[in-house]
């Protein structure tokens, strides 16, 4: 027993000192040559687990931004990335945020799941580190009054407005069936849609919840089939969840129009669901892929793979921050914030201009899957069809 205790204390001592000194040594190095370190930005997102695909999109988007911006940063550079994994788990998100604070990053691009973004924001804000989320669309993210919290993507409430408008104005639907998979994001969106339907003279025939990770939706779809709605509103966490749903919808012979949301915007959807994805509508933050800024992004992204739903947002978030840093001539948070508020530039995803609360506005349009591609279909702003 005594020997055991001896080893325990020895181990504790060694491990603590190892962790402690390891950190301190790094600090010393930085203190010696602050200039050479350049700018370090962090990315936060699920690199492992169920949503690893989306987390990697974010990381890659930031990488592309760094590649593009690095030549422009001059004496402030080089810009480096510290990518951390939160596995969409609040505990790991907070731990990762603390690690990023340790690593002396000055901004964090992320996170993906709203449920990870919200708790991770606490320590980051306390340390005056910018957090720019490219993917967390939950309203609460920017409504907590955090000073350094920004959002490049749209908000759930705006997206649901676009969705309902499309269903009533364009599809002339009278009855809708809603399904979500119980995440902060997907359920928030579905609940908003349900609320708006009441005011829009759209009857909600049912609102079902499935669980994350489910692949078998036959029970729910059987109910949908029996209810015969005009539109089936599908709010799922990502394209990997939506694809089996679409396959089963087709297999069950459900002919209803399907409206999904931005999380399913991923080339993977067509790869997985193939022809069953044809004709599916989705609300998506409009990105004109013909603009020079998008092409610049796509070029930089090319070797990292196909851009996902949030790649361009992650890219824009990082670019916006780096532009602000450049304008401020340093990473002092107050100065950068002032510059960030002044920004107004054409990003890869949309025109980037942050509002006082950190939001950047939404630009949702309706897209449709046609011949294995996402195409713009309808613009809720003016109620017009896009011409092809």
């Amino acid at each position: 027993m005594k020997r055991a205790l001896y080893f325990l204390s020895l181990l504790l001592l060694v491990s603590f000192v190892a962790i402690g000194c390891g950190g301190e040594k790094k600090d010393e190095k930085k203190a010696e040559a602050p200039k050479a370190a350049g700018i370090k930005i962090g990315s936060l997102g699920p690199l492992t687990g169920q949503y690893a695909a989306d987390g990697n999109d974010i990381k890659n988007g930031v990488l592309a931004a760094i590649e593009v911006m690095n030549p422009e940063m001059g004496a402030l550079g080089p810009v480096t990335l510290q990518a951390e994994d939160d596995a969409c788990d609040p505990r790991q998100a907070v731990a990762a945020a603390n690690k990023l604070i340790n690593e002396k990053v000055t901004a964090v691009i992320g996170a993906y799941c709203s449920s990870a973004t919200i708790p991770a924001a606490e320590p980051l804000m306390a340390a005056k580190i910018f957090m720019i989320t490219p993917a967390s669309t939950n309203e609460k993210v920017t409504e907590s009054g955090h000073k350094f919290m920004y959002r490049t993507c749209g908000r759930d409430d705006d997206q649901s407005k676009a969705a309902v408008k499309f269903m009533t104005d364009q599809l002339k639907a009278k009855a809708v069936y809603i399904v979500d998979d119980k995440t902060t994001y997907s359920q928030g969106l579905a609940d908003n849609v349900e609320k708006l339907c009441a005011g829009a003279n759209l009857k909600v025939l049912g609102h079902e919840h499935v669980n994350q990770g489910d692949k078998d939706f036959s029970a729910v779809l059987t109910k949908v089939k029996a209810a015969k709605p005009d539109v089936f509103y599908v709010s799922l966490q990502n394209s990997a969840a939506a694809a089996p749903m679409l396959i089963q919808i087709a297999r069950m012979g459900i002919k209803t129009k399907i409206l999904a949301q931005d999380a399913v915007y991923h080339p993977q959807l067509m790869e997985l669901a193939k022809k069953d994805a044809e004709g599916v509508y989705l609300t998506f933050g409009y990105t004109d892929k013909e603009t020079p800024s998008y092409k610049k992004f796509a070029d930089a992204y090319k070797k990292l793979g196909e851009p996902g739903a949030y790649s361009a947002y992650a890219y824009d978030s990082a670019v916006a921050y780096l532009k602000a840093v450049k304008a401020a001539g340093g990473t002092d948070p107050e100065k950068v914030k002032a510059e960030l508020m002044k920004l107004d530039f054409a990003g890869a995803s949309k025109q980037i201009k942050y509002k006082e609360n950190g939001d950047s506005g939404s630009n949702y349009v309706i897209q449709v899957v046609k011949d294995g591609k996402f195409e713009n279909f309808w613009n809720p702003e003016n109620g017009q069809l896009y011409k092809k």
Partner: protein
Amino acid sequence: MEVFLQQLVNGITLGGVYALVALGYTMVYGIIQLINFAHGEIFAAGGYMGVILISWMVAQGYPPFVCLGVALVLAMGYCALLAMAVEKLVYKPLRSSSRLSVLLSALGMSIFLQNGLMLTQGVYDRAYPGEMVQGGFEIGGAMVSYMQIVIVGITVALLVGLNTLVFKTRIGKAMRATAQDKTMSALVGINASRIISLTFAIGAALACAAGIMVGMYYGSVRYDMGFVLGVKAFSAAVLGGIGNITGAMLGGLLIGMIEVFAAGYISSEYKDVFAFIILIGVLYFMPTGIMGENVDDTRV
């Protein structure tokens, strides 16, 4: 009525898949009393082998059914080898240690294999090429796809095959004898170690077939798909009475049905709760499952 029929069809398909995976759990448990957590990962590996082989063969231009058949056989062999390797590497050396240690190493193996799949196959879902079997027909308003027919058909064929193997052949007899009493069966000249390996192999092959069918049915596979299904299949094995082959088939079918009907008629978000509550309820009144042997552990 239409809805009911449709749910019944769905339930049978799902239940069949659960039954196939549950068999692996139950057989391994029956013979070495181990909850083989890594079994779900073998199932996932099966799904991936299906994708890999079918994609390759489709690209070579073979007709779909040939692809499916060959892939099924090759992948089943692959999974059997994988399961035997796992057994030899981490379970066999632990045969005499505490059961919790083996359970832990099974858990470790499950994490290891799952992440191994992720590293080699990537985090994205992998799509099955084309729909091999298309279309379907209607009975009384319920849509039955040919895919479901194929799945149920393969499941039944495999179950019949397994039954024949276990109850009609010498190997089956040896397996049952080993499950009953390892020392005695060793005395009559049965190589217990080989029989255990074989049990793992058979269980893995069945799980592999289930993996391929699930992949085809839902159109894609993912590295972590084994976990959720594994837990359900394990519940099915326990519900039927763990260690009992017929019980596992019954349990699988029941869990599939409960899930589909609970989702269809009560609440889709709480469907797993109902499945577990029924499981707990059954175990409360029948502490060894529906078909499990009653072990009197109060004997003095």
